[in-house]
């Protein structure tokens, strides 16, 4: 079986079969990561550039580890320390890198659609590692992998996505993926942080009440408040946000069931999640990070073919 696409630009243009293939391949790579030698030779003839025009710790390390564990050669690019700071265009930068015989591009950019633009102009396979407020497909895949691993399935699961839905590429990729795989999704947050027509557009439920949402769901994926993407005041203070939409131990204990807590990181502790929730048994935040490497190995492996 093969993927229906040669790039991973977003979950939006993946089929259900593509998603299942990536998740089942990731399960095999997770086994590789438990071995004494956590490495396979599959991509030893492949060179990959990690092109990060925006800051990242987890995603960049996760991709780099995934590449190394597939035996690929890797080079890293950070825009702040490169010629992009001198005004070189994205396409020029990438074409220069590709002329040094690079086969795949992993790319993060603050402009939504930047990887889609690149895919139209260069021959290499492109993997979107987050573009603006559009998509973060590998995060969506690793979240789905983690939900499936923890609860046994995706179809029929009730997943709440809580927080800044408006500015979140993680939310968008999660919604596309979960809906395709037959899960039920509710988005929850202050009305100012939830796009007005998201219910009709993406087929999700909208609930502004956190307690009701948590009472409904099996899994709550809690998003970070993205202070860097807000150029207007959408809620009055972090403290007020935390009072209405922060998840703390008392709130979790008041529910009639035990739900799974997820967060894509980095956590604003005390804002969207309290420490005694983030570090509790219900939280699978660190498993998400572990699964991220296996999922990215699967994506890189499946996109590394000749065509």
């Amino acid at each position: 079986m093969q993927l229906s696409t040669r790039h991973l630009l977003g979950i939006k243009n993946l089929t259900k079969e593509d998603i299942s293939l990536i998740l089942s391949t990731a399960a095999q790579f997770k086994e590789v990561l438990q071995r004494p030698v956590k490495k396979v030779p599959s991509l030893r003839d492949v060179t990959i550039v990690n092109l990060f025009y925006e800051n990242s710790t987890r995603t960049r390390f996760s991709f780099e580890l995934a590449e190394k564990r597939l035996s690929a050669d890797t080079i890293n690019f950070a825009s702040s320390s490169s010629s992009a700071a001198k005004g070189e265009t994205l396409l020029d930068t990438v074409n220069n890198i590709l002329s040094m015989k690079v086969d795949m591009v992993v790319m993060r950019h603050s402009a939504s659609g930047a990887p889609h633009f690149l895919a139209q102009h260069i021959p290499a396979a492109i993997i979107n590692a987050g573009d603006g407020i559009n998509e973060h497909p590998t995060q969506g895949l690793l979240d789905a992998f983690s939900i499936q691993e923890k609860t046994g399935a995706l179809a029929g699961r009730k997943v709440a996505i809580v927080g800044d839905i408006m500015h979140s590429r993680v939310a968008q990729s999660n919604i596309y993926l979960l809906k395709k795989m037959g899960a039920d999704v509710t988005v929850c947050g202050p009305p100012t942080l939830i796009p007005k027509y998201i219910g009709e557009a993406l087929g999700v439920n909208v609930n502004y009440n956190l307690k009701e949402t948590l009472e409904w769901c099996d899994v709550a994926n809690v998003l970070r408040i993205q202070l860097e993407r807000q150029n207007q005041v959408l809620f009055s203070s972090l403290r007020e946000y935390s009072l209405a939409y922060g998840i703390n131990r008392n709130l979790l204990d008041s529910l009639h069931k035990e739900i799974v807590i997820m967060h894509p990181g980095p956590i604003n502790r005390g804002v969207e999640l309290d420490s005694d929730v983030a570090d509790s048994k219900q939280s699978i935040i660190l498993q998400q990070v572990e699964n991220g490497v296996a999922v990215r190995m699967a994506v890189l492996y499946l996109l590394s073919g000749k065509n």
Partner: protein
Amino acid sequence: MKTILTSTQLTEAITVLVSKINEAHPTLAEVVFVGIQQGGVVVGNDMIVALQQLHASETVQYGQLDITFYRDDIRNEILTPDTMHLPFAIENKTVVLIDDVLFTGRTIKAALDVLLDYGRPAKVELCVLVDRKEHRQFPIQADYVGLTVQTNKADKVKLVNKEVVLISK
């Protein structure tokens, strides 16, 4: 399509393989068995049942190995991996690799690469149901062979529904 081994003959061949292994390894404390996906696992499953009957007092250690990520022609076609499951340490053990058909030897070479990423076995032996001896591309030979067949290089020999068939081009 021609049948090389009927299901009855296949059962007999497996019985012979098991008795050869039993002769070489009267006790299995230091021996583990590993079937190569997918045909080797089919053969391995049957062999382990028979071996377990002969060794009622000890548990026969058996795992499944997948070579997909180690293939030397991986860039030509990206294949989906099968399950890899080695629930024991192979360090200092004798590993008996099991496969259905030994042809060019490339699968076995890849399987050895996989094994060495799990540890350093004391010895590796190879057990195959069918040996297509004249087509080897690597210096690899089996220790236990069910049946040696003469084939053309373009032929395909496959284990299908508990029978071994030869498909000629």
